[in-house]
């Protein structure tokens, strides 16, 4: 069955319609205040209704995968920060996980706990930003966005104290983490995590029962569970459509099986569900953080890494649940210090393939909101 047959026939006949009016072609171009990066959408409009949509990206392509073939494994760790530049820690962890599958190395307990703490903080950071930008796309002129960014700044300061940089952290290493938690970091982290639910409550009061948000985003961009699975969607978008698939629960990588947390599932698969799901996931992340910070043991932070990282010829695929979906690294090692093939499976890129399907039949304003709810970052889409 070809792709055209697999997708339901929602496209209109692309010529003059019954009244003889023309179809308007608009390019919401790379320079646009609300396309979340350099991304272009060629829209064909019939009045206000979207008739066809063609996404065009590649404006941020930086040759990441080819570069990695010329530098040793550890040297591409800083480049993975720049993939999904808002979530540096989880990108690092995914790469470290894949590389640790190439050699036999055991990660010590304390390092695993630190990794979980950093990953959940990154989830908070990313969802804060997404929720703020979603409301900004709806037109609220930036007020909720600035509240969310204010909270995010506190967590970024934590990252700066830990690893030296706010976003490009370069913190995980094969077999552990780069350096230990400084004195007082855990107390500061606890303080910030304790006052985070208050911010979430304030945000929900501002927005959840807001009639305008409800009217604008419910039943907009609906994706049924079958369609979502067929498009290979992962992450909060998949769970909003009703499919229970969270890699933290399925693969149980790291030490996630020791924590008690639930996975929120949506029922309708529209933009409102995706937005609300991220708010609920933030609450679950706070729960995980509290448990991890209470249980963290003392000990070494780095396993026994070999002096030169030269794995035997083999291939491996490692994946984690990044805040946007399933982030995977496929590595082929050939016995030298550089990988033979290094491929990234970016969640934003794969989730973006559903954009056309969701937008056809909706209005122009909805196309912008749907794009916002998919949560793309162009660094990941283009690599």
């Amino acid at each position, binding site marked *: 069955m070809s792709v055209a047959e697999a997708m339901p026939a929602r496209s209109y006949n692309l010529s003059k319609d019954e009244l003889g009016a023309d179809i308007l072609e608009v390019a919401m171009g790379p320079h646009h205040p609300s396309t979340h990066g350099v991304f272009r959408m060629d829209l064909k409009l019939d009045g206000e209704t979207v008739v066809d949509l063609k996404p065009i990206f590649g404006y941020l392509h930086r040759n990441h995968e080819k570069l990695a073939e010329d*530098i040793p494994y*550890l*040297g*591409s*760790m*800083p*480049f993975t920060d720049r993939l999904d530049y808002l979530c540096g820690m989880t990108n690092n962890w995914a790469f470290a996980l894949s590389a640790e599958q190439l050699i036999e190395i055991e990660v010590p307990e304390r390092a695993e706990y630190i990794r979980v703490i950093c990953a959940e903080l990154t989830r908070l950071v990313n969802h804060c930003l997404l929720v703020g930008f979603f409301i900004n796309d709806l037109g609220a002129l930036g*007020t909720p966005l600035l*509240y969310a960014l*204010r909270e995010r*700044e506190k967590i970024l*300061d934590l990252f*700066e*104290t*830990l*690893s*030296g*940089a706010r976003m*490009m952290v*370069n913190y995980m290493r094969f077999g552990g983490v*780069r350096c230990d938690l*400084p004195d007082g970091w855990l107390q500061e982290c606890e303080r910030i995590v304790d006052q985070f639910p208050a911010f979430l409550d*304030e945000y929900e*009061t*501002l*927005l*959840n*029962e*807001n*009639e*305008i948000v*409800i009217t604008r985003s419910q039943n907009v961009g609906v994706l049924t569970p079958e369609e979502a699975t067929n498009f290979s969607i992962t992450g909060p978008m998949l769970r909003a459509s009703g499919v229970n698939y969270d890699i933290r629960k399925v693969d149980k990588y790291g030490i996630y099986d020791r924590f008690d947390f639930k996975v929120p599932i949506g029922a309708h698969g529209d933009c409102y569900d995706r937005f609300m799901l991220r708010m609920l996931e933030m609450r679950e992340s706070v729960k995980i953080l509290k448990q991890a910070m209470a249980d963290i043991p003392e000990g070494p932070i780095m396993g026994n890494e070999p002096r030169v990282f030269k794995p035997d010829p083999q291939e491996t695929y490692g994946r984690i649940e990044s805040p946007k979906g399933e982030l995977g690294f496929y590595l082929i090692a050939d016995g030298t210090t550089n990988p033979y093939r290094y491929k990234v499976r970016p969640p934003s890129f794969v989730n973006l393939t559903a954009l056309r399907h969701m937008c056809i039949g909706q209005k122009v304003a909805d196309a912008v909101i749907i794009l916002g709810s998919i949560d793309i970052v162009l660094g990941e889409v283009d690599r």
Partner: protein
Amino acid sequence: MSLIAKGILQGMAITAKNFIQSYYKKERLPTVQYPEEKSTVNQFTRNIPFLVYDGEDAIDGMRCTACKLCEKACPPQCIYIIKDTDENGKPIKRPEVFDIDSSVCMSCQLCVEVCPFESIRMDSEFELSNENRFEGLLINRDELLKSNEYYHEIHPIEAQDTDDRIAAKIAEAEAKKKAREEKARLAAEAKKADAVMKNAKVAAVTEALAAKAPAAEQIQESEAKTGVIKPEAAALGTTEKSATKAPPPEPVSKDDQASTPQTKESKAPGEDSEPKIF
């Protein structure tokens, strides 16, 4: 919606709360007016690298030995090093040229991790803007060299750790040196004692041989021919030797010499005594 939209009014209440609280709560107005006030730079921040030197003079005190490990480790390849040579052309352990292109550097800190001499570290200076894109942003060795006191100012904990590590390394090197010296001294003493013992032994043997002239002459002849001490002479030697009380290592070495006569000359005196120092 009803006549009074409840959700909208709730939202407006939150905004009003933020408006009023921004006047007296610091948390609700986190802006820092930049050129006049600067927010304190974290002591763990990293921006571009710099080279550390100890003491007063930058060129003499610099820790870098131009081993080029950081150049190899740098992912975007922004470091360029040329080793220094003295007047005769012999290479010395110092870089003559150490250029970092700060427009390429991505602050990843891998150069710091691989440096074995604790000499390259990350600076937190971020006000680096320049009007010249290529020459202005290429930083050369003399601009990169900054003192250890500066390092302590910007990164106190890290600098302290580095100093501790360096001190530990120096202490270890000193300990090894002392151990070697101690070993050499004991070896020299052992050698001296051996020499004394040897003389005494030769004297005793000649006496014994004088008493038992023909046997001793035979043995001496055979000794002179083959250099092998026969067991009787050795037994004679030991009884004589035990009479002359020697310090503790020597009876051991004597026994050693008695039990393994062939290897007496082959063993160096120091090695003999070494495994047996208590």
